[in-house]
Each structure stands twice: as C-alpha cells, then as structure tokens.
C-alpha cells in the first residue's frame, strides 16, 4: 500500500440551483519520499484537494489514507505551507517557528526549542533575520519562514500550495534550489500545487495533470524521467526536458478542457505517461479531437502557465 492513497475523492459546493461538483472520482497515490506536483487551470480544485489532504476541509465523498490512517482532520503529521505564507505578523521569525515547534513538542524546554528553530532558520538561509518581524521581510524571505515552519515540525508529509506563486522569477529560482536541496537531504514526502511548468519539472518525481472544472479529474500522471540529480541550471540541456515541457504546456493549453468526468479518460486509473522517454510519447494525440465537448475546442484561450 502506498504512503498516501486518495480514492474516489469528490467535492461539491452548494450553489444556487443545486450543488456544483468541483471534482469527482479523484484517484492517485504518493509513495514515501516522493515529490508530487499537481498542475491545472485556476479554479479546477487544486487547493480544495490540498485542503482535504491537510484535513482543513472535508471531502463530499471518498477517502484519503495516509500511512494506514484515514485523514479526518488537521494533524501535526502533515505540514502545510500556505499560499499567502500565513505568518503571524506580531511574532518574530524565530517566534513564528517556535510557535509551531512548541505545538509539536510541548514538553521541550526553551533552549531546545531555540536550537531546533535555529537549525531550520539556517537551513532556509535566514540566519541573522531571527528577530525580524514578517513585515520587515521581503516576499521571498517570508515564504522561506513559512517553509522553515512547516519543515521544523518534521511532518510525515509536506503540503505546499503554490508556495512561490507571488515571487519574482529570480527569488523563485533561489528558493526552488533550496527546497530541492532540503528535500533531497531529508527525503521528505511532498505534495505541491504549482502553476509553473518548469518548477514542476525541476522538483517533481510525478506530475498530476488536472483537467478543468467543474467535474475536474486527474487526467493523466506524468512520470518525470529526468535524472534525479537535475538542477535548475543544467536540466534544459537534457533533451527530455523539452519533451516533458511541451507535453505539459500542450496539456494546459489544449487538452485540459477536453477531459470531463464520463469522457474516455479513466479517472479510476489515470494513464501514466513518460513523455521524456523517446518513443513513449502521448498515448493520446495532442488535441485529442476524439473526446470531450466540441464547443470547448474553440473557447478559452487562457494563458497556460504563469511563470513570469
């Protein structure tokens, strides 16, 4: 049994004139130590899935099981990095992290908490900023504090909701490198939402492609076959990179709107594709004209990726 197993997850919100089903029949799994990214258009339900995994929101039906136990509420076993960093503005960097550490280990003394916090402050490269308030930090630094806070409680799984969405490209790159380094060192299991295709290729072992809502589903799972020791600087020298990237962009631009529940995709067992490996290209032809609602083909020319 995989570390995290999501089965037949469905979420409907009450709306005027009946309920709106955001997603239905979501199935995927995450192995221990695996880094999984999910990409999909705005509003398809990524945050909702993450909130269910965090235990902050309840699914309408279906289950998520982590480490043999069903997720029924928030838990210290899962660390969350929120989209808007969610630091407490009245606490310093050190105290924000200490607040989490104290929650995790209530019987630790002050010195122990402090040394533990310091380790994670150093890890994200914020040494020297311990006493600063969040308002005195840049956006990138705040996001790092959020990451340090989530790592500091040493959770079994880390949930990240577009952690770098609000950052400029340069800062984003630096923190991506840092995250990659930390994750490789700690073998942390991670589930992360992103809009940035390059970020997904750099970080993820597995990329879940989510179709547009309502009634969104996991259309396919891309197995990232680039070598694990890839870096932001060398990965685009790898011919696999362009194949994976094209595949992801193609999905976001054209194919994401063609999948709906009840289509030919099998949501119970999403197709695993390895576009990086030559010859193993899409099981479905780009454009997928054989399925979905034809009127969608011309509509919606949204921008696919939000990388600056």
């Amino acid at each position, binding site marked *: 049994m995989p570390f995290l197993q999501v089965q037949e997850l469905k979420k409907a919100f009450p709306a005027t004139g009946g309920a709106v089903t955001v997603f239905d029949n979501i199935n995927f799994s995450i192995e221990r130590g695996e880094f999984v990214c999910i990409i999909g258009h705005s509003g398809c339900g990524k945050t909702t899935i993450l909130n269910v995994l*965090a*235990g*902050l929101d309840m699914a309408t039906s279906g289950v998520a099981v982590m480490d043999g136990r069903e997720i029924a509420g*928030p*838990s*210290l076993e*899962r*660390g*969350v990095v*929120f989209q*808007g960093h*969610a630091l*407490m*503005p*009245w*606490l310093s960097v050190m105290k924000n992290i200490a*607040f*989490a550490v104290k*929650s*995790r280990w209530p019987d630790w003394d002050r010195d122990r908490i402090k040394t533990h916090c310091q380790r994670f402050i150093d890890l994200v490269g914020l040494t020297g900023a311990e006493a600063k*308030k969040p*308002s005195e930090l840049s956006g990138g630094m705040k996001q790092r504090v959020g990451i340090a806070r989530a790592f500091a*409680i040493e959770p079994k799984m880390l949930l990240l909701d577009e952690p770098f969405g609000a950052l400029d490209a340069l800062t984003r790159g630096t923190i991506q490198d840092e995250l990659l380094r930390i994750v490789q060192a700690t073998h942390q299991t991670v589930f992360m939402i992103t809009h940035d295709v390059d970020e997904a290729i750099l970080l993820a072992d597995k990329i879940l492609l989510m179709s547009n809502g309502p009634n969104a589903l996991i259309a396919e799972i891309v197995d990232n076959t680039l070598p694990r020791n890839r870096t932001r600087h060398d990965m685009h020298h790898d011919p696999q990179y362009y194949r994976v990237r094209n595949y992801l962009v193609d999905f976001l631009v054209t194919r994401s709107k063609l999948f709906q529940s009840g289509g030919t995709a099998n949501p119970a067992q999403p197709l695993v594709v390895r576009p990086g490996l030559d010859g193993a290209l899409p099981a479905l032809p780009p454009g997928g004209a054989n399925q979905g609602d034809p009127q969608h083909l011309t509509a919606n020319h949204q921008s696919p990726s939000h990388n600056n």
Partner: protein
Amino acid sequence: MSTRARDLLRSALLSSLLLLVLIGIWHIATLPKVQAQGADDEYAKLMGKGASKSAGFPTPAQLGGAIIKHVSDPFYDKGPNDKGIGIQLGHSLGRVGLGFLLAILLAVPLGFLIGMSPLIYRALDPFIQVLKPISPLAWMPIALYTIKDSSISGIFVIFICSVWPMLINTAYGVASVRREWLNVARTLEVTPVRKAFQVILPAAAPTILTGMRISMGIAWLVIVAAEMLVGGTGIGYFVWNEWNNLNLTNVVFAILVIGVVGMILDIIIGRLQRLVTYVE
C-alpha cells in the same frame, strides 16, 4: 530626519503663536472697562459693580493665579465643599478606572464569545442594539434607586457607557481574525486555550484597544456629567460647586484640567495601542 525636526519645530511655533493670540484676545476682551468712559464708571460705582468684582469672567492673569494656587496645594481637605483639585481628580479617576476595569472584565470575554460564535452573536445582537444607544445618564435614576450609593452609581454609569464600544470591537476583532492564522493553528493542533491567547488575542488586540480608547473617551465625558448630577466628590462636582459659588475662575480652571486629563488618558491608551499593533 532634519526636515521632520524642522516641521515639528514649525508646528510647535505655530501652536504657541495661536495660544498667545488666543490669550491676547481673551485678555483684551476681559479688560476692565473703567478708564474709557467716566460716566459709566461712576454709574458702575453707584451700582456697586466695581472693576475688581471677582464674579466677572476671569482674566488670563486670574486664571494663572488660580492654576498656581491649585497646583501648589492640590490635596487639601477642608470639609465636603472645599477639597483640593488633586483629591477631586482622584475621586473621578478612581470611578472611571473602576468602571472601566469592570467593563473590560465583562466586555472582553463576552466579546470573544460573540466573535467566535455566530449563534451567540445573533442571539445577543438585539439586546446590544437596544441597549447601546441609551445615554448612560439615563441609567442614573435606576442606578441610584437600586444601588443607593451615589459613588457606586457613578461607577456603574461609567461601566455601562464603556462596555459597548469594547464589546463590539472585541467581537468584531475576534470575528475578523484572518482565516489563514486559524488554519495554521489548526494544522498545528493547537489547544483551544493556546489558540485563544496566542493567536486570536494578539490578532484582535489592536481592534480591542481601539474599542477601549473610544470607551475611555466616552467615560471621561460622562463622569463629569454624572458627578454634576449626583454631587459629593469628583471633578464634575467641583465644577458644579464653583458655579454655585459664582467662582468662574475656578470653573475655567476645572475645564482646563478636564481637558488635560482627558488628553493624558487618551495618550496612555494610544501608547498601549501602539504596543500591540502589528504591521501585516
């Protein structure tokens, strides 16, 4: 930095100038009109209305004298109708302090409850809406009748006028704590008590302090009126008593003291407010 210092200096100069002009106008307006018209002067003498009559509107110099007199001996006590300004102020501040404290003890916990529970909010809302606009002085007869003690009635009136702004601001502050912070607390499995004191309280503190500042402003307005009404002691009674003595100099002095003390109270709470305010 230096421009800021220069601006401060400029505004201070302008303030002083304005004060001088005001005192000047006041001085000219209260000049004894003796030398001007001889006939009137004689008439005035005939009528026994000499220029030295103390019941007229005080001149700045007279006020200055009164200030020196009161400030040099603020705590004398010569019977119920003649106490030093310090003693009278002490009585008023004591009542305000006690009523205010009682209001905090009720309003902050109750505001927390209302802010956290939409059910309790809706249940209590009609009561708050009806009770809030009642002038605190309207409670005076009921307070006097039930409590039968003028001093405690004063405290009650302060309590009742301070409680509403604090209650409403606490409830609002608690209800509008950012969801993100509450979610952080939830994912960290923070206990309810710890959540209340370490997340909600600091998050809502600036709003709560704003409520307290409004309350204190109202309480200081109301105490003067309440003490005029029930008499006995306090700065309000002092004003009323000096009015009955036709000592307008002391009345003007008391007005000045009320203003200055009100300002100091506001500054104190303002400082506290700045202490708990955070930048998002």
